[in-house]
């Protein structure tokens, strides 16, 4: 039987490693700075530590150790609140906002990643206790890390909708993407600039569930935010008419995006929109429900 200190150490390392693997280096999402890494790795290490000591403590008949878990849950909730607050504070200075749905989704992910760190360290220590072998514990930890990083990926927009470039044109003063009215622009020079530098994208939902998901304005705002955070926004504070917008055709459920980015690259924009996450907070699955199945005659 390996020594208890070694078991705890393996659990701690595997849990911290899980948090490190789940620390996505993606500049659409916070964190992208050294301070953010330090904060989340430290919190992840603490979560892993709590997970690593729980089994040795229980086997030592120290049953009050279960209360550790409540501390852990409290701490993870705190992580979520911290993320939400910090992103909310940053929102004021964004020309194109993330929107509360995206913020909630990101902060939920951060909370869940800490649970993953905790569960990986528990499973690594459990594997060592069962097999009496440290290496099996390490392997079990690696397997759980792989499982978590795969299952926590979530869906991308391209899984639920088709994305294609669309014609941007004016009917009188109304700007249209294909046949979807975006807004009314009164001044001729602004209209010329929109036609010159603007890009129209059409998002066609693949099924009824996707259609319902796309009605959520938070999901649409997330697409706009992702595009702008990668390709840049053209407008400045005094040019609200160049704000990227997403409007829906209520008859078909198709969503039209109007974007004016610093870099005009239609293919690039489409690639970004395709990879926008389907937000957990906006995702709807009506066709999986009893009423939904009845509705669609399945």
């Amino acid at each position, binding site marked *: 039987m390996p020594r208890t200190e070694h078991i705890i150490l393996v659990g701690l390392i595997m849990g911290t490693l899980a948090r490190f693997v789940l620390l996505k280096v993606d500049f659409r999402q916070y964190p992208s700075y050294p301070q953010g890494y330090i904060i989340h790795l430290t919190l992840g290490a603490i979560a892993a530590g709590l997970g690593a000591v729980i089994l040795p403590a229980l086997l030592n008949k120290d049953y009050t150790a279960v209360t550790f878990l409540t501390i852990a849950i409290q701490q993870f909730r705190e992580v979520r609140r911290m993320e939400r607050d910090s992103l909310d504070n940053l929102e004021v200075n964004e020309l194109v906002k993330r929107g509360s749905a995206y913020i909630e989704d990101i902060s939920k992910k951060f909370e869940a990643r800490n649970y993953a760190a905790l569960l990986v360290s528990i499973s690594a220590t459990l594997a060592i206790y069962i097999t009496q072998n440290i290496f099996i514990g390490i392997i079990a930890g690696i397997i759980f890390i792989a499982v978590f990083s795969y299952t926590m990926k979530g869906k991308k927009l391209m899984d639920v909708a088709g994305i294609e470039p669309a014609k941007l044109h004016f009917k009188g003063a109304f700007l249209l993407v294909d046949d979807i009215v975006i807004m009314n622009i009164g001044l001729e*020079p602004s209209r010329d600039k929109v036609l010159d530098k603007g890009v129209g994208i059409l998002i066609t939902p693949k099924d009824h569930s996707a259609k319902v998901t796309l009605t959520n304005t938070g999901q649409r705002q997330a697409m706009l935010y992702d595009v702008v955070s990668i390709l840049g926004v053209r407008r400045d504070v005094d040019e609200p*008419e160049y*704000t990227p917008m997403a409007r829906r055709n209520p008859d078909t459920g198709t969503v039209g995006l109007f974007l004016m980015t610093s870099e005009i690259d239609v293919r690039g924009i489409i690639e970004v929109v395709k990879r926008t996450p389907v937000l957990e907070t906006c995702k709807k699955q009506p066709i999986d429900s009893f009423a939904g199945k009845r509705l669609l005659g399945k």
Partner: protein
Amino acid sequence: MDITITKAILAIITNRPEKVGNSSVPTFICDNEEERDRVAFNLSKLTDSVIHDLGNGVLVAVRH
């Protein structure tokens, strides 16, 4: 904390004053379309608003 008026007509700019009734919104009456567009552009920059065309010679400045 910032408090701003949004979703409200901040100003009306027109060269056809007969199309605008007695309104409580500041109304700028111009001689021709060229002047109307210039005034509208200046107002939009000053008030961070968007100029919308009502299609009858009347422009409105709205802050969204």
